[in-house]
């Protein structure tokens, strides 16, 4: 029906453009300049705050530099506050493994759910479905931790891990005694925690796919599924990656829930069943008890590493997306 087109027909947009032009006659307007500079200041504040955080952490980590090199700190696996030996690798490993496994668990579910909500479910059901998903985001992480401790961990120990060990035990990931607490438990909790973030953003992105292109695919004889794969997925690819990155950010930094179920044991193990440790967990656990200045500095150093990890992963993913996006969309006539 023509009504949708009527909203954005040419004369209206021209009129809007003219109005836009009239209200911006250069920068001579005082109110305009004031507004403009306020926005500049607010924008700059973000960079200033981020910079100050890094700076403060770096200053706090200074004492560590006396007998630890940066590279040594990152690659050292020992963590012994009594002997003043500090290495971040076990914690970095735990953080990366739990985050990655949680993404592997959550992303397919999240994308499937988003597609169902936006493309396949009847509109009413789609709206109803988004509510519990958004509710998941509102649950405090300590509650997730309790749920993990009392429900997920016993279940993993009694059912899932023995089953995985029996059938997929030839893969190093699924070897060892089924403890329950550990990488797998943390990953599962994290997967549930990041799901609403990924779904919420993906749904918004998928909704922006122009209906006209979907109809074009259907008119060519595409099934509903094919039309989605031809139009919705390529169109919203960049946005979905952005959603996954938001989820990853949350998984990397999650402290409380992970602390409660990862087992808090500073060791590196190939098996997902094993107990481990993560960067935020060790900072939260040891900060109150850290007495020597070197210990405090080491914890600040872990904070810096966490910060850098998040930053590098985000930047790397952005570069990757830009490379993938260089399809025909970027080429102009």
């Amino acid at each position, binding site marked *: *029906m*023509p009504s949708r*087109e009527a909203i954005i027909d040419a004369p209206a947009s021209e009129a809007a453009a003219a109005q836009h032009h009239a209200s911006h006659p250069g920068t001579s307007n005082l109110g305009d300049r004031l507004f403009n500079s306020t926005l500049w200041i607010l924008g700059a504040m973000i960079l200033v705050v981020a910079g100050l955080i890094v700076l403060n952490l770096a200053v706090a980590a200074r004492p560590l530099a006396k007998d630890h090199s940066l590279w040594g700190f990152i690659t050292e696996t020992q963590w012994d506050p009594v002997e003043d030996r500090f290495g971040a690798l076990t914690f970095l490993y735990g953080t990366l493994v739990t985050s990655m496994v949680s993404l592997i668990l959550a992303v397919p579910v999240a994308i499937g759910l988003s597609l169902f909500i936006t493309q396949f479910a*009847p*509109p009413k059901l789609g709206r109803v479905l988004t509510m519990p998903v958004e509710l998941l985001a509102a649950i405090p992480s300590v509650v997730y931790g309790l749920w993990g401790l009392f429900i997920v961990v016993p279940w993993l120990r009694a059912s899932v891990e023995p089953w995985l060990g029996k059938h997929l035990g030839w893969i190093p990931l699924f070897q060892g005694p089924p403890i329950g607490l550990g990488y797998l438990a943390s990953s599962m909790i994290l997967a549930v925690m990041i799901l609403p973030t990924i779904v919420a953003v993906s749904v918004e992105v998928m909704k922006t796919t*122009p209906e*006209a*292109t979907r*109809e*074009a*695919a*259907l*008119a*060519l*004889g*595409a*099934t*509903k599924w*094919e039309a989605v794969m*031809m*139009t919705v997925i*390529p*169109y919203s*690819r960049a946005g979905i990656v952005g959603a996954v990155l938001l989820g990853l950010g949350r998984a990397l930094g999650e402290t409380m829930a992970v602390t409660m179920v990862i087992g808090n044991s500073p060791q590196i193990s190939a098996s997902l069943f094993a107990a481990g440790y993560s960067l935020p967990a060790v900072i939260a656990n040891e900060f109150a008890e850290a007495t020597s200045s070197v210990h405090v500095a080491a914890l600040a150093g872990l904070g810096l590493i966490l910060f850098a990890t998040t930053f590098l992963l985000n930047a790397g993913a952005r570069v990757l997306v830009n490379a993938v996006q260089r*399809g*025909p*969309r*970027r*080429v*102009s*006539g």
Partner: protein
Amino acid sequence: MSPAPAVQIMPPEKPVPMVSAPQQQPPLAPEPETPFKVEVQDLNVYFRANHAIRHVTLGVKPQTVLAVIGPSGCGKSTFIRALNRMHDLVPGARVEGRVFVDGEDLYARGIDPVLLRRRVGMVFQRPNPFPTMSIYENVAAGLTLNGIGGNHAEIVEHCLRQAALWDEVKDRLRHAGTSLSGGQQQRLCIARALAVEPEVLLMDEPASALDPIATAKIEELIHELKEKYTIVIVTHSMQQAARVSDNTAFFYLGELIEMGPTAQIFTNPRERRTEDYVTGKFG
């Protein structure tokens, strides 16, 4: 807009509709010598409580162009979208009645709308090339989709030539379809629709977003496509209907008021409302 619509002043007594009321005449029996390519019997479309298309019955002969005209909101687009079951996907839409293509009822049980839409192609009001695909991929999209083998490059070239676009894009087939101008994009969409070799081509105001030169090209194209395809075109412009079509159907408020040879509709309509519309008294 200034003269009040003549229709409203008209007495409520209903003039005998020529084609739109099947209960008053025997159903159109397909004549053996020239069977209809597309035949519509007592078609009704509802959007929830809104009865958008009312008891429309008409037929289109093969290799002819039917223009559908009428004021905005009269159901032209709704009608044409019923011909390839695009309403299936609109929540709340309901279609009653029968639409035959080559004697096969599209709305019968067991008809797969996906297979049907390959036989009945569609060009939309606004050019809608796939934004993430190149020019080449846009045309080849339907081939890949329907598992049509053969030399895709050849088919793409052939369709782009048919759509009178080849010379303009042959050196940049790998560029984005959306990098073309509006008129070129619409011809790209026509090429894309032709690639799956439909039997019927539906065009929903294909030139409404285009400038006069691009419009002229599309109209020329319709003349050429008529040799092979049966075309139903919705148009806003009565001049366009007069230029491209063999027959014209005039819709008003969801009803088919009158249908006949284009020359007759424009020079000697039987219905008062048709005359008022084509002479510009309302619409």
